[in-house]
């Protein structure tokens, strides 16, 4: 580095330990060497940078390792050994851990010490003019310009002062015998920028610590509070896990309130447990609304809240929405999420079992379960969720002109058998248009990791399930099936002029067997049967023959169904009824794999939603904002106000001329300053030599 660096002469950059930038060290603390070395350590740049880097690394850990998940998830992921290690290191809650808070505390301390030690230097630097200069000392600097002028020194001085003022410099002058010294400075706020920036950091850290978990962590550590981990009603949570309204200085919790109900506590989730924070008022939810874009994406979430508080003359009503919270008595209430608050749903059970032709009606609320006695054994029906809208991109020609269609309400439930195995189902309430026909859609899957497999049960003329269910019942009704099978076989044989009781019985029997297979497992079961009982080379032919037999039987059964219904068949089967038959058979084939002993039809609902509120108290927030403001202002002052010094020395030169030495030092960016200095020197030279040509230097 240039050893004519002006900073050597004018700055006491005490914290710098850099070897390539030697600085004059002059400590104001020399009297207390021991005290000093601790301070020196705490305020050292090395420590500061180490803390910054360690904080960064700790923060990375917190983002890579998902925080505050249930412990069981971690055990599965890392195994019991690493789980214990990570738990002991508090890695599941990095940002709330004592060591992380300690790190922040250290940053606070280090920055404070740094300010304590540097601020006086900065303060002096921004106010004090450097007057003790001589032509000799200034000539050592990087930026110097000398000239001689004919003008008398008094004029030169006046012009120089004018020049400095015009350029926005403050200056002081001193007379040293015949030597006039003008020492000027500009941009002293740059130094203030240091103070602002670093004070800002300290203030932010204090505010952040005030709002952080520190107080809880200490209380927990001293066993004054204990986390609750059980899933129990609020009223049963013991006092040691409860916090009184004014007990906590700051907190952040959440609560879910169903429409029409109120809450006066919030839950603070900590690691694998929670605490109950009591509020000094109660919040009632009158109504929760979701509005949707045409595409079905949510447009807004809003809650109409009523605050009940003894301090209020009458309850306070207020609607909150995302980005529009309510601040009440220092508690901020935010719209955070929503859930089902126990919607009432009405169902009709259409049994898939033979001879059970009675439907059953059922009423349930979301998130409840019932025990059902089914022909397949006892089952638990667990009602998981209800959705009022299902919007999808339009795909059917009939939906022309529309970009999106709403398929209406749907419900997700699980059926758990006696052994605890469960399947998940999703049913839509109203029939949906598919390939030009209306169908009841129901999906099934073995686990939530799989996609749903769907049945699309055709709706009949009345948009009901009746015909399909009657058809299903009919093919299960062995007596009637046999009757019809016999009839049609006989008819077929007589057209072929055959009469053979035994053959007829055989045909009817195989019909019955095929239909039974079909009922149990659809085409798959049929296929398996053929594969097992027929030699390979004949499978193809036999399969086709069986298929034909089955189809004929099903068609005859369907005709019988239409006759039962009283459909007029004099013109043959209508296109609509024919299409229904195809759809019905395809779906009848799937009932075996569907696995549920009934179809659960959603017939009516009464929506009840719950709002998810986040409630916080963060008294440190204003400090954080203040600190942020200081930080930003300080950064701009440091970066964009250049601290510059200029000196103009004037003394009598040879032959009655006046000698002028102009020099300057910029604080930060030498390249920029040199550029500026050349401009300034040109201008000054111009001013001083107005009535003369030629240059100095």
């Amino acid at each position, binding site marked *: 580095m240039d050893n004519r660096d002006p900073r050597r002469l004018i700055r006491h950059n005490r914290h710098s*330990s850099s070897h390539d930038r030697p600085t004059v060290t002059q400590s104001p603390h020399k009297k207390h060497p021991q005290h000093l070395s601790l301070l020196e350590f705490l305020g050292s740049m090395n420590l500061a940078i180490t803390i910054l880097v360690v904080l960064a690394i700790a923060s*990375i850990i917190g983002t890579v390792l998902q925080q505050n998940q249930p412990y069981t998830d971690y055990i599965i992921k890392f195994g019991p050994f690493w789980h214990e290690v990570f738990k002991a290191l508090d890695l599941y809650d990095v940002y709330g851990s004592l060591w992380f808070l300690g790190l922040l505390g250290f940053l606070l301390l280090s920055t404070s010490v740094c300010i304590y030690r540097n601020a006086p230097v900065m303060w002096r630097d921004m106010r004090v003019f450097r007057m003790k200069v001589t032509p000799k000392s200034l000539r050592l600097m990087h930026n110097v310009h000398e000239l001689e002028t004919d003008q008398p020194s008094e004029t030169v001085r006046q012009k120089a002062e004018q020049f400095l003022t015009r350029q926005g410099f403050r200056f002081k002058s001193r007379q040293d015998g015949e030597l006039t010294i003008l020492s000027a400075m500009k941009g002293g706020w740059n130094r203030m920028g240091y103070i602002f920036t670093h004070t800002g950091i300290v203030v932010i850290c204090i505010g952040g610590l005030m709002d952080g978990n520190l107080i809880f962590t200490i209380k927990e550590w001293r066993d004054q509070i204990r986390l609750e981990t059980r899933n129990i009603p609020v009223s049963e949570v013991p006092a040691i896990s409860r916090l009184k309204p004014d007990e906590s200085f700051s907190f952040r919790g959440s609560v879910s309130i169903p429409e029409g109900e109120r809450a006066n506590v919030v839950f603070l989730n900590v690691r694998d447990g929670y605490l109950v924070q009591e509020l000094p008022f109660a919040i009632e939810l009158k109504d929760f609304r979701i509005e949707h*874009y045409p595409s079905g994406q949510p447009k807004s979430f809003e809650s109409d809240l009523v605050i009940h508080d003894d301090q209020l003359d009458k309850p306070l009503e207020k609607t909150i929405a*995302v980005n529009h919270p309510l601040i009440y008595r220092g508690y901020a209430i935010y719209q955070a999420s929503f859930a089902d608050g126990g919607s009432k749903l009405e169902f009709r059970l259409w049994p898939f079992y033979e001879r059970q032709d009675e439907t059953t009606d059922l009423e349930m609320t979301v998130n409840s379960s019932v025990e059902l006695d089914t022909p397949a054994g006892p089952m638990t029906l667990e009602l998981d969720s209800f959705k009022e809208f299902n919007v999808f991109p339009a795909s059917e020609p009939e939906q022309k002109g529309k970009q999106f269609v709403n398929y209406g309400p749907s419900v997700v439930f699980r059926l758990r058998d006696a052994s605890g195995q469960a399947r998940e189902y999703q049913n839509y309430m109203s029939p949906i248009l598919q390939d030009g026909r209306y169908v009841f859609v129901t999906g099934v899957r073995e686990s939530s990791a799989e996609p749903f497999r769907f049945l699309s049960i055709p709706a009949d003329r009345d948009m009901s399930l009746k015909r399909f269910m009657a058809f299903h019942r009919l093919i299960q009704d062995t007596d009637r099936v046999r009757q019809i099978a016999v009839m049609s076989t006989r008819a077929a044989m007589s057209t072929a002029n055959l009469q053979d009781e035994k053959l007829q019985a055989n045909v009817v029997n195989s019909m019955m067997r095929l239909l039974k297979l079909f009922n149990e497992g659809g085409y798959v079961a049929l296929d398996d049967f053929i594969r097992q009982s027929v030699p390979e080379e004949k499978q193809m032919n036999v399969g086709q023959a069986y298929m034909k037999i089955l189809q004929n039987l099903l068609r005859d059964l369907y005709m019988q169904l239409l006759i039962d219904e009283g459909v007029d068949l004099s013109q043959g089967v209508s296109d609509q009824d024919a299409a229904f038959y195809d759809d019905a058979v395809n779906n009848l084939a799937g009932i075996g794999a569907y696995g549920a002993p009934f179809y659960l039809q959603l017939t009516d609902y009464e929506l009840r939603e719950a709002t998810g509120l986040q409630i916080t108290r963060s008294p440190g927030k204003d400090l954080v904002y203040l600190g942020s403001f200081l930080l930003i202002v300080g950064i701009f002052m440091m970066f964009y106000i250049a601290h510059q010094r200029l000196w103009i020395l004037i003394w009598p030169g040879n032959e009655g001329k006046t000698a002028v030495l102009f020099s300057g030092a910029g604080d930060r960016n030498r390249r920029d300053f040199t550029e500026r200095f050349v401009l300034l020197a040109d201008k000054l030279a111009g001013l001083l030599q107005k009535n003369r040509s030629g240059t100095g230097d």
Partner: protein
Amino acid sequence: MSVPESVMNENSEQGGFLARHSVYDWIFAVLLLAGSVVAWRKYTYLMDGYEVGILFGTAVSLVGLGWFWKPVRTLMLAVAALSLFAVWLYGNDLALAESNFFLKFLISSQSAIMWMSALFFMATAAYFIHLFSRNEFVGKVATAMVWSATTLCFVGLMVRWRESYLIHIDVGHIPVSNLYEVFILFAIITALIYLYYEARYRTRTMGAFALLVISAAVGFLLWYHFAKDASGIQPLVPALQSYWMKIHVPANFVGYGAFGLAAMLGLAYLIKDSAVRRNPEGLLARRLPELDMLDDVMHKAIALGFAFFTIATVLGAMWAAEAWGGYWSWDPKETWALIVWLNYAAWLHMRLTKGWRGRPLAWWAVIGLFVTTFAFLGVNMFLSGLHSYGEL
């Protein structure tokens, strides 16, 4: 659009305030403010108080920017003229994007963005040719291409803004709401910061490097558009429906853009430095930009980026306080913003108080870009959190 020398004339001339600004300066300022008043009168019903404040705050800042850096005046007027032309062509019919000649081939937002992409790629090539041939003409062409690309890029965003309202009034929003849109923003801002230093240092040698990161962004943009079909205008999720987005996101991208530029200059520094060590007379050693200047611009870019990144993070915290109920939740995106910030704070301290220069800081700036890129993209790809819009 070349850059006049007047960029260099700082206001050291202490003439009167009026005298220091040209007629063009005043026409520009009046047009800009008048435009804002018109926008305000016309769209009052769509704006809340904060948004009106942002509108006029932006207008005043842009006047300041135009006065400080003269070529930007022409840029803004060109963007305004072209955007208004497109808006006028559209009327109320979005379908015209497919049938109107100008819209279809030039200034519907998709077309403008495609032109921008092509121009940025061509400019990259031109800057490389200029770097090794030192052909002045090619250099000027490169600069002109970057200015044109930037103009079209801005037009693309402006028109997209209008298009979102044409889809449906409820869907309308400023186009800085998802990954696709902010990549465009990144390209513009990086280009502008680069152009400023190009004029300030009167050299086009840094262009090849600056344009590399822009081209990479544009490459990603095209991939995202064609492979992921990400260019559609989507309605805003409720959390994003806030005036904060208008200031938080652009501030962030001044930071990202500046850090991106700094990393590229760091790369240039490292290449040049090794080349000089190996053979001071070699082509690379002679052709690549001067080390001192690279070091200097790198520092300035990081300082600029740091200042704006600080603002952006603070704004983000204030927004989070309003939308999520806490100014700091240690959400992965937030946390990574902090990591980026700490990283550059350490960088600045090393330079300023430890006197580090050159190689180590150049390395650090390059590594810094990886940290920044992770914060910008990686978080969306690999980590979950509240900032989960703009997924890949």
